[in-house]
């Protein structure tokens, strides 16, 4: 009892600490002072009256949302004596693996830098600054020579690293377990099985209405859709983050999605936020980073070639270039297994006083990174809001998809979850694919790393991301990947090579995500 209480007070203290530095705190203080003018506030019962005022005016809700946001993002403190690295990643071997992967990336970046003799960062001459400012809304029309730039790494390079991950404490010995050795991932992490997933994703069950299934043309809207939309509007009116998160598990109506996601991520466009974005924009104008060219190259290679996202090319530059310069993103490294790369001022290698994080936000983009932003352009059109939403999505979810950690939503766990699901429930298919040299993870990895962006049709992707937000977890990506394989099982059983298997699974754009998930989780006979 006592332990729980002290845990709770520790959590409360930590959250209060965090919120004290935030804008919300200043606003609440101001509101409290202003409320003293109101007739209903009496000196005798000052505390209760102000609390009451906050409740009525909606400020309490805002505070609630902020607390909820903190709880969702930051992991709960484990043990008071645990060092900060444990918060990042409790397993030593994972930390080591992430560290060496980062070294490799940085080496690759530095060698590109030396080869092309381009500085990592330089200040733009005034003329160039003016030009860029003029072209800010149409940077896509620029055609810089990017032929010499290569993406620092691609998902398949990362997959090779994950395949070679080993836990030095885990010795399999002679007992060749059927599970652990058949797939590509060889580390023993705990992943959910289907009964656990059924419980976790209970709102996706057959008896609960879903957008993506129960709003199809054959179903009369009175049965589910109308009521669901009505509830959604109510949730928005109440401005309750937690309720929105719960609501969105059943899918979000198209017209309400933008606001609901903003509510869940606790994003409200304050003047300070717009100002912050403008500040980042100024940083972009003033300094040119090598990373910018990588971003350009990635956008040109991926989003610009996409049939639907090509339209948003300009927005992608406006978001990603600013993102690279945003030092507030460094905050997420406290709970990510990754660490921001350090760069040293010329000639001062090794001297900590001259170390800076490079890029300023500590995130080096890889091939396909821009696809995290592209679907959001469908929902948000105002650059600073789009930016905030993307940043929040990144520091809550996307960073886990390209760093090595033991977190249940980390990419390693997702890969293991995928392979386990497939082995357990489709053993024949799994075995067949393995025999022909087409390990399923080799095909599904790229889907999961990109959270299916660019592979699914946009409306289906947004329904999928609704559930990511609703369950605050990326596990659904692994479940969907397994469900896709299950769906195409008949065709896959007939292929005889990796290339043929790739071909069967090349086009996911016609798939309907929710029926696949429902069938796999709730309607498959095991």
């Amino acid at each position, binding site marked *: 009892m006592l332990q729980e209480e002290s845990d709770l007070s520790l959590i409360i203290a930590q959250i209060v600490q965090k919120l004290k530095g935030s804008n919300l705190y200043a606003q609440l203080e101001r509101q409290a002072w202003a409320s003293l003018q109101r007739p209903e506030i009496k000196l005798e019962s000052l505390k209760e009256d102000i609390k009451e005022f906050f409740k009525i005016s909606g400020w309490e809700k805002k505070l609630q949302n902020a607390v909820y946001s903190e709880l969702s993002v930051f992991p709960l403190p484990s043990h008071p004596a645990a060092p900060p690295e444990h918060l990042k990643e409790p397993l030593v071997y994972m930390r080591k693996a992430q560290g060496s992967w980062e070294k490799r990336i940085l080496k690759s970046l530095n060698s590109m830098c030396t080869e092309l003799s381009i500085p990592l960062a330089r200040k733009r001459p005034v003329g160039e600054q003016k030009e860029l400012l003029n072209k800010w809304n149409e940077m896509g*029309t620029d055609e810089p020579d990017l032929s010499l730039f290569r993406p620092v790494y691609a998902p398949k390079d990362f997959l090779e690293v994950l395949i070679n991950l080993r836990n030095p404490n885990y010795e399999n010995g002679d007992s060749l377990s059927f599970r652990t050795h058949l797939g590509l991932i060889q580390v023993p992490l705990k992943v959910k099985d289907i009964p656990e997933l059924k419980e976790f994703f209970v709102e996706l069950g057959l008896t609960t209405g879903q957008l993506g299934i129960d709003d199809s043309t054959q179903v009369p809207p009175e049965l589910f859709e109308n009521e669901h939309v009505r509830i959604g509007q109510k949730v928005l009116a109440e401005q309750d983050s937690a309720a929105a998160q719960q609501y969105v598990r059943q899918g979000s109506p198209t017209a309400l999605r933008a606001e609901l996601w903003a509510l869940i991520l606790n994003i409200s466009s304050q003047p300070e936020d717009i100002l912050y974005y403008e500040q980042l924009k100024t940083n972009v104008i003033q300094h040119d980073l090598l990373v910018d060219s990588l971003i350009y190259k990635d956008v040109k290679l991926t989003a610009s070639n996409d049939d639907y996202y090509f339209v948003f090319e300009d927005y992608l530059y406006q978001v990603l270039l600013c993102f690279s310069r945003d030092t507030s993103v460094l905050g997420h490294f406290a709970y990510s297994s990754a660490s921001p790369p350090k760069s040293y001022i010329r000639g001062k290698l090794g001297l900590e006083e001259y170390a800076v994080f490079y890029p300023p936000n500590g995130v080096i983009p890889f091939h396909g990174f821009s696809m995290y932003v592209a679907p959001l352009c469908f929902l948000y059109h105002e650059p600073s809001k789009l930016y905030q939403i993307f940043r929040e999505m990144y520091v809550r979810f996307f960073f886990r998809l390209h760093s090595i950690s033991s977190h249940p939503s980390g990419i390693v766990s997702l890969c293991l979850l995928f392979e386990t699901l497939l082995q357990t429930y489709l053993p024949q298919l799994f075995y067949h694919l393995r025999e022909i040299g087409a390990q399923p993870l080799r095909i599904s990895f790229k889907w999961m790393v990109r959270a299916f962006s660019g592979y699914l049709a946009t409306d289906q992707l947004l329904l999928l991301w609704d559930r990511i937000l609703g369950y605050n977890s990326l596990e659904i990506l692994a479940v969907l990947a397994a469900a896709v394989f299950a769906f195409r099982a008949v065709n896959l059983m007939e292929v005889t090579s990796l290339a043929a298997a790739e071909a069967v699974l090349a086009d996911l754009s016609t798939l309907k995500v929710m029926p696949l998930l429902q069938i796999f989780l709730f309607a498959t006979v095991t």
Partner: protein
Amino acid sequence: MSRPKNQNYKGHGLPKGKEREGEWDFYWCDVSWLRENFDHTYMDEHVRISHFRNHYELTRKNYMVKNLKRFRKQLEREVGKLEAAKCDFFPKTFEMPCEYHLFVEEFRKNPGITWIMKPVARSQGKGIFLFRRLKDIMDWRKGTAGKKLTSLEAQPARSAINPSGSHDTRSSDDQKDEIPVENYVAQRYIENPYLIGGRKFDLRVYVLVMSYIPLRAWLYRDGFARFSNTRFTLNSIDDQYVHLTNVAVQKTSPDYHPKKGCKWMLQRFRQYLASKHGPEAVEKLFSDMDNIFVKSLQSVQKVIISDKHCFELYGYDILIDQDLKPWLLEVNASPSLTASSQEDYELKTCLLEDTLHVVDMEARLTGREKRVGGFDLMWNDGPVSREEGAPDLSGMGNFVTNTHLGCVNDRKKQLRQLFHSLQGQKKVPS
């Protein structure tokens, strides 16, 4: 059962000329063939041909404007101002050079706005330019057209383009010119187009007309939005690539990457708008577009020679402005059937397949169908309701038109069900 012999799906009909001698049952013909041969070709009852004799009443910009203006006046007289205002989907247009003076009057009333000059009979963006000063077109008018015409220009003015002039009312000015000037229209340029990603786009929608008297028109659910490759700005009205969204023009732009295509399917466009403006605004926009299709067809209903052998698949070009109002840019009688991408190819092949189903050479349909594949019956001598039973013509009520532009197109399933039930019906003796 007559078997269609002469079917050409890609592009226009091959010049068949002499060797066919009326041996065909179905001809997807070229408009030039039609012009030369229609009048003296005998066609059996069952024969179908893919154009109306004088389709140019709808598709040539100057005739369309005339017909629309006339129809509008008629509506105002017969029904009232409100109904007539529904015809205001065409930007103010003046035929050149005969309405030049009217144009100048309008021009002076609105100084500083941009106008666009389009040749009446050409397509694919050829010969179009923008201007703001009268000086620009005065030069052009005097025959120093070379200054304004870009390299995309074909040679101006062949007299073959003008049909034998029953509608031409040229002013005496023109006869002075040595070079025969082809007809142009000057149209008010829509300066506040709706932009997506900073780019201008227009919509291509397909309407199939089976007859004009009575008016029977079908609307295809699929279509696409064509994007300009460059960002919209009014600063560079000389830049063809910014303003003209025809794929043909975009293809020559230095920015153009053929792998990209620059089209969005209408479903995607509809979803995008719904997530931005909400479903009601989108419903209104699409019903305004329905209004454009119907009114434009009604305006030429009495003028077009309605031959029972004829049908026509039109490609409507619609531009949306920032207030979500749709404008009619033009109507094409021979919409391009070449594909710029896999998706495009599928759309066009399905479109053609469904067109043939509606034309129904094999006489399988009962004639009471409201949907065939991707086509929805939009107008059947009166509005067609989505609900079963007789249309509710009592003004508002619960009338929802039977159009599903940009909606789900499960045509394969529908066709299967349709033909299955038709087969079933045939088995039962009547």
